[in-house]
C-alpha cells in the first residue's frame, strides 16, 4: 500500500481502539468498535485476503447486534 494511505488507515484503526478503551457511554463504545473494524479492513484487502475481508465484514455487524441486545437489557 502507499505509505500515506497506510498512515491514514492505521490512524483510523488506532483512534478507534483508543476511543473504544476510553469512552464511557456504551453506544459510543460500539461506534468506536465500528471505527476500529473500518480501519483494519483495508489492510486485510491490500494483502489479497479478500475472503477473510468478506467474512470479517459480515461477522462484525452481527457481533455488534448481539452486544446491542445486552445494552438494551442493561438499560431497561
Amino acid at each position, binding site marked *: 500500500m502507499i505509505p500515506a494511505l497506510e498512515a491514514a488507515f492505521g490512524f483510523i484503526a488506532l483512534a478507534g481502539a483508543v476511543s473504544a478503551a476510553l469512552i464511557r457511554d456504551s453506544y459510543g463504545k460500539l461506534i468506536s468498535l*465500528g471505527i476500529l473494524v473500518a480501519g483494519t*479492513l483495508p489492510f486485510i*484487502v491490500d494483502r489479497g485476503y479478500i475472503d477473510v475481508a468478506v467474512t470479517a*465484514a459480515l461477522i*462484525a455487524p452481527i457481533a455488534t447486534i448481539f452486544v446491542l441486545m445486552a445494552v438494551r437489557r442493561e438499560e431497561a
Partner: protein
Amino acid sequence: MIALYIVAAIAVFAAIRAIVEKNTGRKLPYANVLSFAVSGALVLLLDHPLSLVAAAAYFVGSTLESNAIASTYSGGVKR
C-alpha cells in the same frame, strides 16, 4: 490514484469527527460516512474482481450496524 487519496482523507475526517463528537446522535452520521468512504477505498485498493464483493459485503454490513445502533439508541421498536 487521486480518488484513493480523496476517499482516505474523507475517512480520516469522518473518523475524527465521529470520535470527538460528544452527542451520540451526532456521532452516527459520521460513522456512516466513514463506512461509505472505507467501502470506496476497498474497491480502489486492489485490482481484483472479488474486491467488489468484499466492498459490497462491507457496505451492507456497516450500514446494518449503523442502523441497528441508531434504532436501539432511539428507543427500538415499540411493541
